[in-house]
């Protein structure tokens, strides 16, 4: 089982890592699934776009001319052909609340291994006292391990009852 504060999934794609990275970022609007379950506009038509480079943003743009868009999050790491990290805020999130998505592109037989990790729903705001000085990732993984352990124990207990 995955650590509960972190979801991982991966695929192998039959193109080289440079191409995989370029398709992932430049062509995101072409492959990202459409519809309210996958997009952000709540039924509004928009197109997804990465502003390239660190500090860029992932946007869903509804009206380019009027600057009408939804900011999914900022790009934290932009290593062409290797690694991409961006913030990910769903519509239901509170202001200031965010999660993080990391995508790795690694050469593999037959193309590129693309692994994605979405983490940090348990990571609280940086100023939260519960952090005790832990940096975001350390805090998230600490909480994650704790959850994993807890869920396993509850699962065992549920099975024991049944």
């Amino acid at each position, binding site marked *: 089982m*995955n650590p*509960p504060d972190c*979801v991982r*999934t*991966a*695929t*192998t*794609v*039959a*193109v080289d890592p440079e*191409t*995989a990275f370029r*398709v*992932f970022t430049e*062509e995101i609007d*072409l*492959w*990202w*699934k459409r519809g309210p*379950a*996958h997009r952000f506009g709540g039924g509004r038509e928009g197109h997804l776009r990465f502003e390239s480079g660190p500090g860029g943003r992932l946007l869903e743009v509804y009206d380019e001319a009027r600057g009408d868009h939804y900011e999914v999050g900022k790009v934290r790491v932009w290593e062409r052909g290797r690694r991409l990290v961006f913030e990910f805020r*769903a*519509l*239901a*999130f*509170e202001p200031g*609340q965010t999660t993080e998505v990391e995508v790795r592109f690694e050469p593999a037989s037959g193309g590129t291994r*693309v692994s*994605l990790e*979405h983490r940090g*729903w*348990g990571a*609280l705001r940086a100023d*939260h006292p*519960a952090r*005790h000085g832990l940096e975001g990732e350390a805090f998230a993984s600490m*909480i994650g391990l*704790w*959850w994993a352990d*807890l*869920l396993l*124990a*509850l699962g065992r207990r*549920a099975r024991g009852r049944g």
Partner: protein
Amino acid sequence: MASAARNLDDTLAALAEPTRRRVVDLLRERPRRAGELADAFRVSAPAMSRHLRVLRTRGLVEEEPGGPDADARVRVYRLRAEPFRELQSWLAQVESFWSEQLGAFKAHAERSRKARRR
């Protein structure tokens, strides 16, 4: 998905405090009285009662009358399973969201690159 996210936030917020996480750890073994919990952490009864109130209002624990001497004035705290089930189902949804996205990415990348090579 939105309401599951809110519940999850509640759950995680309640657990964003080390003493409360350890209380939950102890309650995994068996239900316990508030006094027992206060003793276990060497915190004052009012401090423990504040922690228990947070856990209760966020739905992680429930209290009921009981205790070894079946004294109705004694309250015991036990863990509720629902928040943990919600967490699991939320994770399953997030996981399927991303596997669908990566599947779509793979299909698009391979289709468009094949077309370009021709």
